[in-house]
């Protein structure tokens, strides 16, 4: 056994004051940091900032919805009006088709045609009608904008709707057909958009279905309004889309109000609150549509006008500022202060000083002063000396970080346990990481202490690089991801590559990824290898005692 109890006792006696000073002050520092942070609620500002952006996004979404609904409403009216003239083909088409079905039945001993056969009959009907309107006498009297090809498609689509339910005929069938078309168009558009965005197939289908249904509802309402107006106006009814702009706007505002009010009531708020919230939504909707109209009148394209009308707060400030602000809103201040500043810099400083001084004092200091001669003039092997001193250093650090862990867990528990932004598991991992970092540094300092006979070399090579690492971590902080980009100088991240402390990946620990694990492994390996090199080197070197 390479262990000397007497020497261990000597090391404890020589270093205990330093140990107590460092441990107590680090523990106090940590406790203060956690308790102060836990009670200050520094995330409040962050959260409100975040809310602004969430609301801005919601607002933008509402406005988009309003403008889209408005557009759809107007478009439906205008399209429906345009296609009224083709509604007269409904009767001809269904009649002709019904006849064909009857003929088929007679020819086939009363058997209903199969789906395929129905399609063939539809095709036949459509072709016949197309040919019919192509006749010179009739083609001239067709309503404006209607060609034989359009009639062919129209008849086909109409009949496809008709065969789903043959009791719906006449205007009702045409309306059904019309709404179907709107549903399909809307569905296709939304689905394609979602797929392009990278949404999952299944999700895209659901989203598209919802959107298409609401489009259909809006279109249905628009058609009803049209029919109502037409009935009340009688024969003199002349459709003009301009007359319907305010109608559309009013309709959309009301729809938004109703929808939001309903949702609010469902979520359990009082009627008054629901009303208040719904009204604010109505106001937003109104603003969006007015802005949209204005821009359209100014000669912008629909797309441009929509973009202007749906701008949110974050769209109105310069992009860089918006990014910086939204990042500030997303920043994890606890992670930054406890993870990156306390555990990687402030909390490491004192243990590091302890390690530098103690590692040097355990070997190189004693060789330099000559006091090692007293130990080595007794029957004590060199390896016993190094192993004992190494054990002392490890026990001292273990005890130090065990206490630090206990203090940090208590502090987190005091400020609210798991409600605190950093949970118990993460705090334990942070302490483990800080220990492993100190362990690696201790190994390295110990190795220097065992290699050099002079304190000045051991201190400057061992301690120098250690302090250099810490300083690099401080400088590197300004370039690291945890600092908001407004304050970040990304070139400073270079310093992080120069520091062993970078292997203590607090960001990974706090965001739950596992890359900190292999870095822990490297820290452990550095510690073990350097300790071993130190022990073996000391066995073989000349000692000026």
């Amino acid at each position, binding site marked *: 056994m390479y262990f000397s109890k*007497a020497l261990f006792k*000597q090391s404890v006696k020589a270093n205990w004051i330093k140990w107590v000073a460092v441990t107590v002050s680090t523990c106090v520092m940590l406790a203060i940091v956690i308790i102060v942070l836990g009670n200050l609620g520094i995330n409040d500002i962050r959260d409100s900032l975040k809310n602004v952006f969430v609301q801005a996004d919601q607002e933008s979404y509402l406005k988009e919805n309003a403008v889209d609904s408005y557009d759809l409403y107007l478009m439906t009216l205008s399209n429906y009006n345009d296609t009224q003239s083709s509604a007269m083909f409904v009767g001809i088409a269904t009649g002709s088709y019904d006849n064909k079905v009857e003929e088929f039945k007679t020819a086939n001993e009363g058997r209903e045609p199969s789906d395929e056969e129905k399609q063939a009959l539809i095709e036949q009907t459509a072709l016949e009608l197309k040919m019919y309107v192509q006749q010179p006498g009739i083609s001239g009297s067709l309503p404006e904008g209607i060609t034989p090809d359009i009639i062919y498609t129209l008849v086909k689509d109409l009949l496809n709707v008709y065969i789903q339910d043959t009791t719906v005929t006449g205007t009702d069938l045409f309306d059904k057909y019309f709404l179907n078309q709107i549903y399909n168009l809307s569905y296709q558009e939304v689905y394609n958009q979602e797929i392009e965005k990278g949404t999952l197939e299944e999700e895209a289908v659901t989203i598209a279905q919802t959107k298409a249904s609401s489009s259909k509802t809006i279109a249905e309402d628009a058609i009803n309004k049209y029919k109502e107006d037409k009935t009340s106006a009688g024969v003199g009814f002349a459709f003009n889309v301009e007359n319907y702009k305010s109608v559309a706007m009013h309709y959309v505002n009301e729809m938004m109000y109703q929808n939001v009010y309903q949702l609010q009531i469902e979520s359990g708020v009082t009627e008054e609150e629901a009303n208040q919230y719904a009204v604010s939504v109505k106001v937003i909707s109104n603003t969006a549509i007015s802005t949209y109209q204005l821009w359209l009148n100014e000669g912008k394209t629909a797309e441009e006008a929509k973009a202007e009308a749906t701008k949110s707060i974050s769209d109105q400030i310069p992009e860089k500022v918006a990014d910086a602000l939204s990042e500030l809103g997303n920043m994890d201040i606890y992670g930054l202060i406890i993870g990156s500043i306390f555990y990687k810099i402030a909390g490491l400083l004192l243990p590091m000083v302890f390690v530098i001084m103690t590692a040097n004092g355990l070997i190189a200091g004693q060789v330099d002063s000559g006091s090692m001669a007293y130990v080595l003039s007794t029957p*004590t092997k060199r390896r016993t000396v190094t192993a004992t001193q190494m054990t002392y250093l490890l026990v001292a650090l273990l005890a130090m970080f065990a206490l630090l862990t206990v203090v940090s867990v208590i502090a987190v528990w005091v400020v609210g346990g798991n409600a605190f932004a950093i949970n118990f598991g993460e705090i334990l991992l942070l302490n483990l990481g800080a220990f492993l970092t100190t362990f690696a540094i201790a190994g390295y300092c110990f190795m220097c202490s065992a290699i050099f006979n002079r304190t000045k070399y051991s201190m400057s090579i061992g301690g120098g690089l250690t302090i250099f690492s810490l300083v690099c971590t401080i400088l590197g902080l300004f370039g690291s991801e945890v600092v908001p980009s407004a304050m970040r100088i990304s070139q400073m991240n270079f310093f992080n590559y120069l520091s062993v402390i970078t292997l203590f990946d607090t960001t990974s620990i706090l965001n739950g990824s596992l890359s900190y694990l292999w870095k822990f492994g490297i820290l452990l390996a550095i510690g073990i290898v350097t300790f071993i090199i130190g022990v073996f080197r000391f066995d073989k070197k000349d000692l000026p005692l």
Partner: protein
Amino acid sequence: MEVIKVQDLTKDYGENRGIFDISFSVNKGETFGFVGTNGSGKTTTIRHIMGFLKPQKGEVSVLGKDAWKDSCEIKKYVEYVPGEIAFPDLRDGTSFLKAQAELLNLKDMSYANYLIEQLQLDPSANLKRMSKGMKQKTAIVAALMADKDILILDEPTTGLDPLMRETFLKLILDEKKKGKTILMSSQMFDELEITCDRVALIYNGRIIDIADINQLKNLPYRSYKVEFKTPEDYIKFKKLKFEIVRDQEKYNQVTIKVYDKEINRLFNILQNYNLKFISEVKYNLEKYFKEVLTKVHEKGG
């Protein structure tokens, strides 16, 4: 029996520093001294014996064991007073001596207490505030308290006042009487002359000569310095066949070497001369080594 044996030991630090082809041996019960100026290689040689340095060339053994490889084993028989006194980071002399006793696995402190009394040491003093002499005494107690067979001391009397040195030398002589094998280095010829059986002179990393103190003390001749009142007598005396070691014409003075058996003849002759004075020139280790060194320098050119 050779307790310490050093054979062709070389450690070359470059620029003519270091030690070169050092060979000597110390027999059981013998006290062996090292004398030489600062930087001559005394400490380097001792560090090799203690197993702190690895020989570049040659061999060092203690009790037949290799001083480098079996360093730990050898320490069971060796006690050591280092040249530079620096104590571990402990509070006072008592705790240092206790810690040292623990490392030595020493339970019985009676001999340590005896030594403390002899050296009039107050071990309760703070280690950092001790005077050089007190530190030296503490170091000596720490080394001697285990009462092992071999004692190695590197310039142990530096920093001691003359009275304390006296006490210390007595202590060494006591240890010697017990039959311990002792190796000590010093810059003072007189204390080595008192304590040692043999003394080696190291100069520029090489052993120039090893003197046997007993032989030096029992030389068959003595030197006398004679000054005559007149130059005539001086010239007349020089013509007699006495071996003249030193001739100072200016003072009509000669130093002659006279074998003990010739002493009567000398005095008979001198009766006829007009003398100013006659005195014996004491021959000692210092003189002897100075002669040796002069010869070396003459040879070296």
